[in-house]
């Protein structure tokens, strides 16, 4: 399934936001970038934020696996 780089970038930013050890300042910065990337994609595909996020939701897991990335909470202690 071809994935536009704009969508891959949104997945990447979301992945970074889920990093449990992310610092507060990094979280604020990446969250702003994430919102900006979503807004850009919404303009491109003429859709609302809810529509875009729902449409690409299931692709996020596929992207994580394709990139060979660990799941953010995979290595975290369950205690």
């Amino acid at each position, binding site marked *: 399934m071809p*994935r*536009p780089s704009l*969508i891959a970038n949104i997945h*990447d930013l979301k992945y970074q936001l*889920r990093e*449990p050890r992310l610092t507060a300042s*990094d979280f604020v910065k990446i969250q702003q970038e994430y919102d900006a990337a979503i807004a850009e994609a919404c303009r491109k595909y003429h859709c609302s934020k809810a529509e875009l*996020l729902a*449409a690409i939701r299931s692709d996020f897991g596929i992207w994580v696996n394709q990139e060979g990335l660990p799941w953010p909470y995979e290595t*975290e202690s369950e205690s």
Partner: protein
Amino acid sequence: MAATATQTYLPEIAPRDARDWEFVKSLLQDLEAEEHREQLASAFGQWKLLIKAFRRVEERRMVRQSPEQLDWKFHKTCLCGLMGFGTMLQIAAGGHKSEDLEKHGFHKDLLDALLRDLHNTFDEWHGQVPEDRLKALSEDIFNAETEPHREHSRSKVSA
């Protein structure tokens, strides 16, 4: 200058005497505000921990596997609870200066960003987008794309 509470409600007290008490009262109010900020910071810390717990379960039950009907419901109710509590924190923090709150580790910009992130998650999972609209949009994004797929180089954030 506005009259103090003592001047308004106890006008029989001589202003000079009242001034001494007003000074003590203002110190007490400062202390109460400080306590309130400490309580806010503590609640903020608890809320952040809850968000992490939520994200951990979300990853396991919603993202890495196909969620069941009960997962959808728990996800929605937990998300709404976190959004509600975060909004209450936002309201409570409105009465304090950012620099006073930051002394206790309460960062308003982080609170706002975490709330935006939760709202995005609500849109993502519970936005009530009609199925036919989702299908058409997914095709538009993933199939009708003429842009050549290029490797997205990611810059991983160090732990």
